[in-house]
C-alpha cells in the first residue's frame, strides 16, 4: 500500500514549484502514512483499518449467505460448513450479518467523526473568538453540557426518533464535539493570541482564514487523538445503544446487532459469543492506538520527514512561513497552558 502511494504521490526532484504546491496535500498524506507504517503499532492499526474497509466494501456485493435468506428448519443452528458461525432465531447466517455489520459501523464512525469535528471546531472558534461575550458564554456552555452522558442524549433523541442510526450519530457527535472543544481550547487559544495571527489580521486575513491556516494546524495533533478516540468510542456506543434498542434499528446489520444476537445464542453455542465482541475490541484498540501514532505523524515537531516537507513548501508558499517555525513554541507552552487551564476549570 505504502509503495503505491510513494509512486503516485512523491513528485520528482526536478518538478516546478507550482507543481509541488499542487501536490502538497497528497505528498504530506503519503509522508504521514509512511511514518505510521514504520512503527509496529502503526502497522497493526493500518492493517486492521484496511481490513475493516475491505470487508465493508466486499459485504456490499458478496456475503457467504444472503442476509435475507431465512431458513425455518435451521433456526439457532450450530456452526457448520454452510453457516460458519451458525444461524440466529430467524435462520439467518450469523457470519454474513457480522460481515455486513462492518459497513454500518463504518458509516456510523465516519458520520460521527465528521459531525464531532465540525461541531467541535465551531465551538473552538467560538471559544477563542475575540468577542469576550461570545468566548465567555461558549466556555460556560461547554462546561455545563459536557457533564451530560452521551447515553442520556441518545435516550432523549430516541423518544421522538425511535431506534435509528441518527440517534447514535447525533448523540455521539454532539458529546464528542464538546470533548474535542474542551481539549483543543488551550492550544487554539495560544495560537489565536499569537503574534503571527496578529500580523495575519493586520494584513486583512478573515476570521475563517485565521481558523483554517493558523489555528487548525496548531491543534492538529490534539484533533488526531480526539477524533480517533471518538471513532473508537462511537463503535462501543453503537454496540451498547443497539443492544438497548435505541441504536441501529432491527433488520439492519451492525456489530451491536451481532452482539445482541450472540447474547441469545449463548445457550445454543456459547463460543459464538466470542466473535462479535472480539471484532469490536480489536477495532476499538486499533482506532485508539491510531490516534497516538497519527498524532506523532502529523506533528511536524515529532516527525522530521513531515517537518522537512512543510519547510520546503513553506519556502514556496507566501505567508505560511511563520506557522511551522512557531509550531514548536506553541506546542511546548501548550502543555503548561493545559495544566493551568485545569485549575481554571475547577474554579468555575
Amino acid at each position, binding site marked *: 500500500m505504502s509503495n503505491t502511494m510513494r509512486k503516485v504521490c512523491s513528485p520528482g526532484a526536478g518538478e516546478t514549484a507550482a507543481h509541488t504546491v499542487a501536490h502538497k496535500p497528497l505528498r504530506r498524506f503519503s509522508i504521514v502514512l509512511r511514518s505510521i507504517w514504520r512503527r509496529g503499532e502503526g502497522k497493526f492499526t493500518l492493517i486492521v483499518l484496511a481490513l475493516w474497509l475491505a470487508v465493508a466494501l466486499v459485504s456490499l456485493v458478496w456475503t457467504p449467505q444472503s442476509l435475507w435468506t431465512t431458513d425455518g428448519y435451521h433456526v439457532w443452528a450450530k456452526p457448520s460448513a454452510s453457516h460458519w458461525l451458525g444461524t440466529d432465531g430467524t435462520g439467518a447466517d450469523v457470519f454474513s450479518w457480522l460481515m455486513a455489520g462492518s459497513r454500518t459501523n463504518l458509516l456510523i464512525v465516519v458520520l460521527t467523526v465528521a459531525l464531532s469535528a465540525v461541531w467541535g471546531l465551531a465551538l473552538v472558534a467560538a471559544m477563542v473568538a475575540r468577542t469576550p461575550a461570545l468566548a465567555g458564554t461558549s466556555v460556560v456552555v461547554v462546561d455545563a453540557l459536557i457533564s451530560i452522558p452521551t447515553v442520556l442524549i441518545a435516550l432523549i433523541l430516541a*423518544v421522538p426518533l425511535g431506534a435509528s442510526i441518527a440517534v447514535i450519530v447525533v448523540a455521539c457527535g454532539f458529546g464528542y464535539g464538546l470533548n474535542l472543544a474542551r481539549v483543543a481550547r488551550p492550544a487554539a487559544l495560544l495560537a489565536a493570541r499569537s503574534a503571527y495571527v496578529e500580523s495575519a489580521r493586520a494584513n486583512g486575513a478573515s476570521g475563517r482564514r485565521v481558523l483554517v491556516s493558523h489555528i487548525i494546524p496548531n491543534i492538529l495533533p490534539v484533533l488526531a487523538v480526539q477524533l480517533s478516540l471518538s471513532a473508537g468510542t462511537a463503535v462501543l456506543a453503537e454496540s*451498547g445503544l443497539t443492544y438497548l*434498542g435505541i441504536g441501529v434499528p432491527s433488520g439492519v446489520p451492525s456489530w451491536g446487532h451481532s452482539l445482541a444476537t450472540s447474547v441469545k445464542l*449463548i445457550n445454543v453455542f456459547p463460543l459464538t459469543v466470542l466473535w462479535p*465482541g472480539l471484532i469490536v475490541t480489536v477495532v476499538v*484498540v486499533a482506532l*485508539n492506538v491510531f490516534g497516538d501514532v497519527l498524532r506523532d505523524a502529523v506533528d511536524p515537531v515529532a516527525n522530521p520527514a513531515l517537518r522537512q516537507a512543510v519547510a520546503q513548501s513553506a519556502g514556496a508558499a507566501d505567508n505560511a512561513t511563520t506557522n511551522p517555525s512557531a509550531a514548536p513554541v506553541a506546542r511546548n507552552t501548550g502543555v503548561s497552558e493545559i495544566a493551568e487551564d485545569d485549575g481554571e476549570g*475547577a474554579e468555575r
Partner: protein
Amino acid sequence: MRFVVRRLLLFVAALFGLSVVVFAALRILPGDVASIMAGVNAPPEKAAQLREQLGLNRPLVIQYLDWMGALLHGDFGTSILTGRSVTSLVASRASITFPLIILGLLIALAIGLPLGCAAVLARSARVRAAFHVLAIIGGAVPALWSGLLLILLFGKGTGLVGILPSQGFPMDGWTTPGRALLALILPALSVGIIVGASLMRYTRSALGDLADSGYIDMARSCGMTRTQAVLRVGLRLATPQLVSVIGLTFASMITGVMVIENLFALPGIGNGLVTDVGNRDLIAVQSELFLLAAFFLGVGLVVDVLHRILDPRLKSADTVSEVAA
C-alpha cells in the same frame, strides 16, 4: 467561599437550563402518550379524552410551570402507564443500581489503582509496555461483551465454573442480603473490569507526570527510594485529580451500567429508563431524566469543591490572581 457561591449559582442555572431542554425535547415527539395508552385500535376520541385528562393539550408554558412547581415541592409526578409515583419507582430502582455501581467502583479501584501505580513503578520497559497494552485493551472492551464472557465463565447453567447467578434480582430484594449481593457480583465485575482499566490509565498518567517532576526529585534527595517517593509524595499530589476522576466516573456509571443491567435482567435505573422511553411514558421519562441530570451536575459540584479542598494550591493561585486584578 466566593468560589462555592459562584459554583452553586452555576449549578442552579445549569439545572434550570437542563429542565427546559429535557421538557422541550420530549414535547416534539410525534407519537404521544395518550394515543399509545389508548391502544392501536382505539377511536381517536378516546385518545383525545385521555389527553384532556392528563392535561397534555394545555399550553406548553403552563405544562412546564406545572411540572416545575410540582418538582419544587418534591412531587415528581406519576408514571402514566403503571400508576406508581416516579419517586417510588426511582427509589426501588436505585436500591439496585447504587449498590451495583458502588460495588463496581470498589472493584475498579482495587484493579485500577494498584495496576496504575505498578505501571509507573515498573523498571523494565517491557513490563511497562505490557501494562500499556492491558490498559488499552481494557478500555476497548464493550461492556456487553465483558458481561457475556463472565457469564460464560461463571454463570449458573452456562458457565465453565457455574457458581454465580447470572439472571435477575431476588424478588424479595434486600430482605435477603446474601442472595441480593450474590446476584450483583457478576454484573459488578463486568463493569468493574472496564472502569478499572480507565482508572488505571488515569492513575498512570497522573502519577507518571508527577514522577518526572521536581517534587519526586526533592523527595528522593531527602532519602526516599523512588517507590517510596512515588507512593507517598506522588499519590498525595495526584489525589485531587484522582478524586475528581473517580467522582465523575461514579456519576457516569449510573448510565454506564445500563447495558449490564439489561444483560443481567436487573431492574435498575438505567434499565427502567430505557423501558420508559420505549413506552413513551412521558411524565416518568421527563422526571427521571431531570433527576439523573441533577445528579450528574450535583456530583460535578461536589467534585469541584472537593478538588479545591484537597488541592490548596488552587486557592492560593486564586488569591494571587485576585490581588493582581
